[in-house]
């Protein structure tokens, strides 16, 4: 395959760096413009992973931190495909997630929320997409929790998702929300996104067909990474 550039990231669809209603961004946002680069070898390459890097159970958050039982909470499946903007599957790429437990508490030494730690829930998982870009996690639905921003802010239930893609230019971390959650509309972090359609893209949809009767409710969450031109650019990418 000849090297080709990734489509320019559509910054209008992402949040701006400075979003004052999400207060922490005020001192953590660059003031100067980003320097836009055309892709070089440094950007069209990126880390690759294999099944040797992970364990088969890593994508099952109901079992991967079991200390004699299952975690409390609604049993759910989160699944979908990783695609690029050309709707082509992104195979063999690492997907990692982390989340609070069903009570809204993170297993993290810096989280002091009064909801209890669940002894059987770690709250993280990882998997590789298959040849069709498909991935699958089993977990419990995370709880909403309060956070210090405005005095009465609550995060909607969410799962953090990290995706590599095939190149450093595709690297992405985002958050998955759940269809029908009334807290989405008032969340200052969700609302950093200027575009209602972009917000909807972060909402996992109830997937009745994938639900396992008498066992687990399924949510569908497809992830789209930057696409890539199919033609090589005029100027040779590599040296010589």
């Amino acid at each position, binding site marked *: 395959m000849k090297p080709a550039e990734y489509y320019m990231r559509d910054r209008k669809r992402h949040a701006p760096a400075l979003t004052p209603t999400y207060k922490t961004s005020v001192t953590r946002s660059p003031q100067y413009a*980003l320097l836009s680069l055309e892709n070089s*070898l440094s950007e069209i390459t990126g880390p690759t992973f294999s099944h040797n890097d992970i364990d088969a159970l890593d994508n099952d958050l109901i079992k*991967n931190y079991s200390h004699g039982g299952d975690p409390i909470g609604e049993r759910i499946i989160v699944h979908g495909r990783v695609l690029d903007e050309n709707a082509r599957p992104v195979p063999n790429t690492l997907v990692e997630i982390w989340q609070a437990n069903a009570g809204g508490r*993170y297993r993290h030494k810096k989280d002091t929320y009064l909801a209890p730690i669940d002894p059987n829930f770690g709250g993280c998982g990882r998997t590789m997409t298959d040849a069709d870009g498909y991935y699958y996690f089993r977990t419990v639905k995370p709880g909403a929790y309060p956070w210090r921003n405005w005095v009465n802010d609550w995060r909607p239930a969410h799962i953090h998702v990290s995706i590599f893609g095939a190149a450093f230019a595709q690297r992405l971390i985002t958050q998955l929300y759940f269809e029908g959650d009334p807290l989405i509309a008032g969340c200052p972090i969700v609302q950093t996104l200027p575009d209602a359609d972009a917000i909807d893209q*972060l909402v996992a949809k109830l997937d009745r067909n994938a639900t396992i009767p008498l066992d687990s409710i399924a949510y569908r969450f497809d992830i789209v990474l930057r696409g890539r031109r199919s033609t090589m650019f005029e100027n040779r990418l590599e040296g010589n």
Partner: protein
Amino acid sequence: MQYLKETPSQTAGPYVHIGLAPKAAGFDIFKQELGWDIAGPNAKGERIRVEGCVYDGTGAPIKDVMLETWQANTDGHYAHSEDGRAVEDGFRGWGRVITDFETGLWGFDTVKPGATPGRNGTTQAPHINLWIVARGINVGLNTRIYFDDCDNSNDPVLNLIEQTHRRQTLIANRTEDSKGVTYRFDIHIQGTGETVFLDI
């Protein structure tokens, strides 16, 4: 013409360690955590350490930041099919780096990368690509670490920076002592001395 749109980014939040570095969050869950061994045991070239701190707009260290590194080996080859040139067995070139929760200091051990091909027949001076996420950062920030003991004068990316004094924000400073070679690379997210961030 109909294309899909890239999934929008959201902040990694304060608890990024749970998913990506759970031992730092305070628990042990995976057989192996990823990204702690950048170069592997067989990498040729100079072994170096890179250390620094990420500062916010008030000048305070950011203590919940996570950085990912991506670099070529000492010959300037990336461990990736689109480079295609050989790297040492076990060389991945990718690292995941978190800060000390008390001080905000971070550091990683690797080998110094070689020069890599740029566009249009140019050569990029040795550099490590960086991606920075944290609470309060809505879209991960990209930048590069260059080295003050290399000839950076013809680097095509540094030379794109119009305000020439800002090029210094991408250059790490070398020191040597009995423990080895360390480069210092501080990152200023905002304000005086703001690091040049890249839209790649």
